[in-house]
C-alpha cells in the first residue's frame, strides 16, 4: 500500500513538473512573441506616446516709435492648465489652485468638473504664479504650468488703435499687431522630448530639431511725444465739447510719415478684452465722413491749377441761392450778415463761402473736378500700412446732376476718411506733389540689420507748384484774417481751413438735424511746412463750428509739436510784436523829444 502510494506520488510530482514547465514555456513563448515579433510595433507605439514635438517659441518682435521707444513688448508669463483625468481630489485641488492663482475656488472647481479633459485655469499670469505652481506640482497632480510670454503695451492707451493688441496665442488680433503679424511673430522652432507619466518633459530627452526664428522689430513713423501731445489735445477737447468721437492726424508732408494719429475715445490694449470692440476701431483711417468746407481747398486748388485767378470774382453771394435746381446757402458771420457779396477764390476760402465754391465747381465741370479729387487720392485706397484703410466714396461724374456737382464743390455729397483729407493738405504743403502716407518706418531683423526700410512713398504731382503756392496763400489768409483765426499759432505762419459739415443720415436721404462734424486742417510753417495736422470732431456738443471746436486743437498740437521738433519760429510772436511796437513808440517819443529839445 505504502509503496503504491509512493509510486503514485512520484509519478504525480513528475507530472506536476511537466505542467509547470508547460506553463513557463507558454509564458516565455508569449515573451518571445512580444519582444521579438511585435517588438517594432510596440516600440514605435511607445515612442509615439512618450515623445512629443513641441514648438520652440519664437519671441515676438517689439514695436517701437520712430525714436526707438517701445510701444509693444513681451514679458514672461505662465499659463496654468489642468488635465482633469489626472486629478485625484477635485475639491482639494481647486482650493489649493485657487489660493495660488488668487481666484475664486468655485470658479476653479466648476472648470475642473466640466466635461473637458483639458482646461485652462489661468492664462498669461504673472511668471511668479507659475513658479509657485511648479514648486507645488507634487501636491497638484493633473495641474500643469506652461511658460509663455505676454504682450504688454508700456505706453498704455497711447496709439492704441494703431498698435492694436494680440490674443492669448500671441497672435495679432487688432491694429498693426494683426497686420504685421507675420513679421512680428517669427517662426517657431521644434523640439522633441519624452514625457514622464505626469506628461512633463524629461529635460535630458530634449532634442531641438529646429531653432526658433524670432520675430522682427517694427519701427513706426509715430513720434511718441507728438502722439502724446495729440491725444492730450483730443482729451481736453472732449472734456469741453463731449463729442461722440474725434480724431487727429499729424503728418510730415515731405515724406508722408504719420507722426501721430489719435482717436478719441480710446482704450488700454493691456486690457483690451474688457473693453468694447467699437473702441478698437481706427476711425481716422477706417471711418468715412463728409468733409464739408475743408474740401473747398481741393476745388480751389483745381481751379488755380486750371489757370483761374484767385482774384477773379466767381460769384455774387447773397447768403442763399438756387443753383441748378437745388438750394445752396452760406453761413454768415459779421460783417457779412447780408451775404459775402462779390466772391473771389481768396474770399471763398477766407470766409468759407459755399455759393462761391458751388459756382467754381460748376465752372470747372464734373469731369475735371472728379479727376482732381482722384488725383488728390480721395478715391483710391491709401496704402499707409494700417491694413484697415477705407476708400473715399463719390458717384461717377456722369451720374452727377448739377446740384451734386455744386455740393461736391464744398464737400457735401461725398465721403472720405480723415487720413485722406490729411493727404490733400500734405500735397498742397508739399508744393503740389502727393506722397503716399505711411505708418511703418522700418522693419528690422532681430540682429539689428534692416529687413525692410520704407522709403518715402511714390511721389506724384497733382497740381503745379505755382498753383500749390497760390492755394497755400489762400489757406494762410484764411488763418490770418478769415474763419480760421482760432487756428493761428503764435510765432508761426499757418495755413488752414475750417469745416463744419452736416452729418448724412444713415439711410442716405438728407442730413441729420443739428449734428455736425467740425474739422480743421492745415499746416505750418507755411514756407517750409513741417507738419500737416488734421482734426476731425464728430458731433461735438455746445458748438459745431470747426473754428471753435477743432481749430484750438490744431493750434494746441501744432504749437507744442513745432516747439518739440525745434522748428524755428518764422514770424514775430505776439510778444515780440508788442516789444517792437513799444520800441517803435519809444524811438518815436525820443525823436519828438529830440526835435522838441
Amino acid at each position, binding site marked *: 500500500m505504502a509503496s503504491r502510494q509512493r509510486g503514485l506520488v512520484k509519478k504525480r*510530482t513528475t507530472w506536476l513538473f511537466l505542467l509547470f514547465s508547460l506553463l513557463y514555456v507558454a509564458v*516565455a513563448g508569449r515573451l518571445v512573441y512580444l*519582444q521579438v515579433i511585435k517588438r517594432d510595433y510596440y516600440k514605435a507605439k511607445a515612442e509615439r506616446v512618450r515623445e512629443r514635438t513641441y514648438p520652440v517659441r519664437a519671441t515676438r518682435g517689439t514695436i517701437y516709435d520712430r525714436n526707438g521707444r517701445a510701444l509693444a513688448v513681451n514679458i514672461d508669463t505662465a499659463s496654468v492648465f489642468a488635465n482633469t483625468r489626472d486629478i485625484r481630489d477635485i475639491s482639494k485641488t481647486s482650493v489649493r489652485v485657487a489660493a495660488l492663482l488668487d481666484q475664486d475656488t468655485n470658479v476653479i472647481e466648476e472648470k475642473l468638473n466640466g466635461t473637458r479633459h483639458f482646461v485652462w485655469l489661468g492664462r498669461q499670469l504673472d511668471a511668479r504664479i507659475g513658479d509657485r505652481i511648479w514648486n507645488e506640482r507634487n501636491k497638484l497632480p493633473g495641474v500643469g504650468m506652461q511658460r509663455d510670454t505676454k504682450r504688454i503695451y508700456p505706453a498704455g492707451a497711447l496709439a492704441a488703435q494703431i498698435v492694436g493688441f494680440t490674443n492669448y496665442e500671441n497672435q495679432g488680433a487688432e491694429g498693426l499687431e494683426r497686420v504685421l503679424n507675420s513679421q512680428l511673430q517669427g517662426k517657431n522652432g521644434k523640439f522633441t522630448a519624452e514625457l514622464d507619466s505626469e506628461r512633463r518633459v524629461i529635460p535630458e530627452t530634449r532634442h531641438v530639431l529646429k531653432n526658433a526664428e524670432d520675430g522682427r522689430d517694427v519701427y513706426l513713423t509715430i513720434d511718441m511725444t507728438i502722439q502724446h501731445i495729440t491725444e492730450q489735445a483730443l482729451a481736453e477737447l472732449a472734456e469741453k465739447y463731449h463729442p461722440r468721437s474725434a480724431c487727429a492726424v499729424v503728418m510730415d508732408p515731405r515724406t508722408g510719415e504719420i507722426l501721430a494719429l489719435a482717436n478719441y475715445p480710446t482704450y488700454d490694449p493691456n486690457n483690451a478684452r474688457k473693453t468694447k470692440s467699437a473702441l478698437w476701431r481706427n476711425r481716422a483711417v477706417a471711418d468715412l465722413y463728409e468733409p464739408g468746407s475743408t474740401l473747398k481747398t481741393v476745388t480751389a486748388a483745381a481751379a488755380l491749377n486750371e489757370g483761374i485767378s484767385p482774384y477773379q470774382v466767381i460769384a455774387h453771394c447773397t447768403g442763399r441761392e438756387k443753383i441748378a435746381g437745388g438750394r445752396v446757402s452760406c453761413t454768415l458771420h459779421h460783417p457779412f450778415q447780408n451775404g459775402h457779396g462779390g466772391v473771389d477764390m481768396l474770399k471763398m476760402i477766407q470766409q468759407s463761402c459755399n455759393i462761391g465754391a458751388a459756382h467754381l465747381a460748376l465752372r470747372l465741370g464734373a469731369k475735371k473736378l472728379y479727376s482732381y479729387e482722384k488725383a488728390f487720392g480721395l478715391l483710391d485706397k491709401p496704402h499707409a500700412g494700417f491694413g484697415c484703410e477705407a476708400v473715399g466714396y463719390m458717384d461717377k461724374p456722369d451720374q452727377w446732376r448739377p446740384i451734386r456737382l455744386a455740393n461736391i464743390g464744398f464737400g457735401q455729397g461725398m465721403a472720405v476718411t480723415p487720413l485722406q483729407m490729411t493727404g490733400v493738405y500734405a500735397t498742397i504743403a508739399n508744393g503740389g506733389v502727393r506722397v503716399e502716407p505711411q505708418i511703418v518706418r522700418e522693419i528690422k531683423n532681430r540682429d539689428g540689420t534692416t529687413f525692410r526700410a520704407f522709403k518715402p512713398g511714390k511721389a506724384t504731382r497733382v497740381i503745379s507748384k505755382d498753383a500749390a503756392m497760390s492755394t497755400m496763400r489762400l489757406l494762410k489768409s484764411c488763418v490770418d484774417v478769415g474763419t480760421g483765426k482760432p487756428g493761428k499759432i503764435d510765432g508761426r505762419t499757418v495755413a488752414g481751413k475750417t469745416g463744419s459739415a452736416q452729418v448724412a443720415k444713415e439711410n442716405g436721404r438728407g442730413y441729420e438735424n443739428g449734428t455736425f462734424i467740425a474739422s480743421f486742417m492745415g499746416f505750418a510753417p507755411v514756407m517750409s511746412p513741417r507738419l500737416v495736422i488734421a482734426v476731425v470732431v464728430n458731433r461735438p456738443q455746445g458748438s459745431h463750428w470747426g473754428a471753435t471746436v477743432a481749430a484750438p486743437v490744431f493750434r494746441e498740437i501744432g504749437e507744442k509739436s513745432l516747439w518739440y521738433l525745434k522748428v524755428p519760429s518764422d514770424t514775430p510772436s505776439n510778444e515780440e510784436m508788442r516789444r517792437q511796437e513799444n520800441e517803435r513808440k519809444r524811438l518815436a517819443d525820443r525823436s519828438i523829444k529830440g526835435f522838441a529839445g
Partner: protein
Amino acid sequence: MRKEAKLGTPDVGVLGAVVVLLIVGVVMVFDASYAKTGDAKWANFDTWYMAKRQLVYAVVGLGAMAWVSTFRFSRLIKITLSLICISIVMLFAVMIPGVGHTVNGAYRWFNLGPIRVQPSEIAKLATVLYLAGLFSKRRRLVRRISGEWVGPVVIVGCIAGLIFAEPDLGTAMTIVGTAYIMLMAAGAMKRHLFGLATGACGLIGLAVLLEPYRMQRVWVWLNPWRDPYGDGYQIIHSLFALGSGGVTGVGLCLGREKLYIPAASTDFIFATLAEEIGLIGGVVLLGAFLFLVYRGLDIARRSKSTYGNLLAVGVTSIIGLQAVINVAVVSASIPATGVPLPFISYGGSSLVSMMLAAGILLAVSRQINVELEEKELYENGTDGRRDRRAHISGRKRRTSPARSRYRR
C-alpha cells in the same frame, strides 16, 4: 513518541536561487523606483527610498527563512490550526472599514505601526500547511468524494473567497491553484481532477459574466486600447516596455516605461526588467523560477513522508504559480489581476511571506528522510477532533463502506 531525528542539510539549489532572486529584486526595485521616489515628497525625494526598505525586508526575510527552515514537521503541524484561524479572522477583520487599510478601493492591508501586513500572504501559507496535513493524514479522503470534503472545502473556500472579495483575484487564484495542485499530488482521481477543473472554469466564466467590472477587465485584456488612459493604461505601457526592450534590452536604468507604469516597482516590476535587460533577462528570470520549482518538486519527490511531499509541492506551487501568473499578467497573457513577483517585487509582506515559503521548503529538504508515522499526525491533529479520530477502529468503520462501494 519517537526521538526526533537530526535535521539534514538544507537544499543548496533552493537557497542559491532564492538569494540570487533577492539580489536581483533589490537591484530592480531601485531601478524601477528611483526616478519616481527622487521626485516625490512622500519619499523625502530619496532615490534610494524603496531600495533601502527592500534591502531591510530582504534581511528580515532571510532571517525568517533561516528560522523556519529549522522547524520540524511536528511543529509545523502544531501551528497549522492556529495559523488557519488567525488567517480567517484577519481576512474578516481587514474587510471592516477603519480596521483594514484601503488602497485604490481594495481592503488588503493592516497598518501595524510602520509595517503593513497583508493577511492574504499568511493565509496562503496556512492553506498549504492545512492541506498538507489533511491529505497526508487521511489519504483516502482524496480518493473519493464524501461528506468529509465539506470541512476542507469550506475552509479553503472561505479563505479564497475572502481574498477574492478584498478584491485580490490574483492571490485567490494562487490559493485555489495551489490547492488543486496539492490535490493532484495527493493522488486524487483523475476524473475528479478533471471535473473540478471543468467546474472551476464554469465558475470563473459565470463570475466574469455576472460582474460588469470583471467583464471590463477581460475586455481590456483582450484590447487594452479600449481604455488607454483608464484600465488599459498600465497594461499598454507594460506592453510598450516589453516591446521596447526587445531581445537584449535598452540597458539597466535606461528604461522609460517605468515612469508611466503606476505599479512599476511592485506588481509590474517584470516589465521594467524586460525593458532594460530584454527577452534574455526575462527568460533567464523565468528559468530561475522554473529551477526553483524543479528543486522544490525534487525535494517533494525525494521526501519520504507524504506530509513532506505535499508541503514541498504546496509551497513550490505558491512560488511557481505566483511567478508565472505575474509574468502572464505583465505580458497581457491573462487579464490583469495584481500578484507580486516572488522575491523581486517591492513590498515587505509579500517578500517575507515568500521567504517563509522558501523556509518551509528548506525545512522539508532537511527532513527528507523523516518517515512520519500516522500516529504522530493524529496526535497533532488539525481540526480539533483528535479524540474521535484517535480510535483506529472508528476510522476503519467510517472508511470501510467507502472502500466496499469502491470495489463494487
